[in-house]
């Protein structure tokens, strides 16, 4: 049972880890939280759902559609909540993203209806059995995909010009601007990327859980955020570690504490961590 819970935790953890990266990206650049992240995730799931149920039952196309929709929504949120509000109090941007969270949820409910919709499953057959724990192809695929995504991001940040720009802006906004980096463009791209990532995870989650509805984003949004803080919100490896740890801790606390207290355990751990390691497990100074 322990191994089964570990497998469950790691699978759930890959979802958390990817959302955590989204939060981490925005935080690193703007020191801000996008509370509409969960809703972008939800719209991604709907985009994937439209593709597989109306166009073609192709998993990769669905993921791509989610990515694209998330990119667009991230771009919109950035333009309104952050760019238009540059140089104004933090709290304004924060409240603006809360407004977006409301708006997205209810727009989705108005367009698609509030009913939970079925999402077909892919690769759900058992791939292997490890110490009595079933592991499905989808679970392997998810973990692999999460790993690939993280690798890709590292490559992006450390191997490309735009990545260099993102790191520079994260380090020092003003100096980066003086050095000729197009700060607005870099922020916009990073923000859209974070949205795209969240929506991408939305599609994955929809396939994993086989269901979508307009209010599905709230819990993963909060969990992703928690994971990001857990691992160190200023660092992407930290966010990933936080995601997996949170997934494993939650599943283990169901097993060894009680299902009613699983969130309690993770939030308590979060507070304790904040007290003794305010920058998270891997977080140091602004490092991406």
């Amino acid at each position, binding site marked *: 049972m322990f191994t089964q819970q570990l497998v469950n935790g790691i699978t759930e953890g890959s979802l958390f880890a990817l959302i955590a990266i989204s939060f981490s990206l925005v935080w690193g650049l*703007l*020191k*801000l*939280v996008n*509370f509409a992240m969960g809703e972008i995730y939800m719209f991604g799931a709907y985009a994937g759902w439209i593709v597989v149920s109306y166009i073609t039952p192709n998993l990769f196309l669905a993921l791509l559609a989610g990515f694209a929709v998330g990119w667009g929504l991230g771009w919109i949120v950035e333009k*309104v*909540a952050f760019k*238009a*509000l*540059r*140089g*104004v*109090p*933090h*709290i*304004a941007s*924060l*409240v*603006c993203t*809360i*407004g*977006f*969270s*409301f*708006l*997205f*949820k*209810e*727009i989705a*409910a*108005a367009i698609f209806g509030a009913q939970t919709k079925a999402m077909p499953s892919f690769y759900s057959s058992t791939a292997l059995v490890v110490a009595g724990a079933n592991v499905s192809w989808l679970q392997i695929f998810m973990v692999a995909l999460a790993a690939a995504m993280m690798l890709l991001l590292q490559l992006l940040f450390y191997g490309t010009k735009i990545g260099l720009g993102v790191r520079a802006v994260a*380090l*020092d*906004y*003003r100096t980066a601007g003086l050095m000729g980096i197009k700060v607005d463009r870099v922020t916009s791209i990073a923000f859209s990327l974070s949205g795209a990532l969240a929506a991408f995870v939305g599609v994955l989650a929809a396939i994993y859980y086989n269901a979508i509805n307009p209010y599905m984003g709230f819990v993963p949004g*909060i969990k992703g*955020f*928690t994971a990001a*803080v857990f691992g160190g919100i200023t660092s992407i490896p930290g966010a990933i570690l936080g995601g997996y740890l949170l997934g494993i801790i939650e599943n283990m606390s169901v097993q060894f504490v*009680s299902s*009613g*207290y699983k*969130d*309690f355990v993770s*939030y*308590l751990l*979060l*507070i304790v961590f*904040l*007290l003794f390691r*305010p920058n998270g497990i891997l977080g140091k100074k*602004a490092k991406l």
Partner: protein
Amino acid sequence: MISISRKYRLVLQLCVGLLLIALPYLLGNQYFVRIATMIGIYVVLASSLNLIIGFTGMYSLGHGAFYGIGAYASAILSLSLHWPFWVTMPLAGLFTAMVGAFLGLATLRLRQTFLVFGTLAFGEIVRILIMNWNSLTRGPMGIPGIPVPSLFGFSFKNFSNYYYLVLVFAALVVFLIARLYRSRVGRAWVAIREDEVAASTMGVPVFGYKVLAFTISCLFTGLAGAFYGHFVRYISADQFGMNESFLILTMVALGGTGSIIGPVIGAVILMLIPELFRFLAQYRSVLYGAILILVIVVKPEGLAGVKGLFVPPSGTARFHFRKQKIDSAAEGQAGGGAA
């Protein structure tokens, strides 16, 4: 600030006061009186959160939980020990303040930005505790039948009566907060908001005053919870979740941080919008989100807030994480720079 002449202001306050007193008669309808009462409770909530956000420059995303602690404390005391509202209400406030003080002592040394996460997690912990602690809180079943307060045989069951009760309470809280704001204590808070290091060299014990602000804010929030519980007479955990924290935060931001009247306006508007647009049925929530975004984009400082507050003159507020080496080291030592 644009200052109005004292005389003019007094006349205005008198007019508003009279209007508020005459309100139940003007409105006639119990539905509107109820909304007015709820607005009163939210005026308290928003004003006390403003004490933290607007005056002292800290964050709290856990105020929904403090609100719930107050409501539950008063409800449980009055139902299990049959104490009157006039005893349970202040006790609930004190208890909430105590919890707030403990949380403050634990987390206020953290960098301000981490306070956001700390309070958010705390809010969730409280909600989960309420949901699971069946023997005390009846868990998800909620607590029905909370008694209506009465005073010397005079019952507040009638909404108009309760309205006056809440009116007195809200007016008192706003008055107290205004007095604190204009006192030595309030100046210390604003000094902390503006520059912690400078405040400490001017003799302000930064940490102590932060905890004080947090505690007082929680006291008022807990009291508001008690007033709420005895008003609706049924409370359940889902009434005090994260959405509630967000709602209160939104009221402060929309009305205007750092001013006395701002949160009041925010509470009035955000309570009225959903009622005014009821005829839109499911599209009402879409509109709510849209209005929120629009107002914030047009007036980021809030409707009655101080323009540009929290933004250093250079205008690169949120990007000033790395100033001079000595500077950031100083901030680190003194417990964090501006968020």
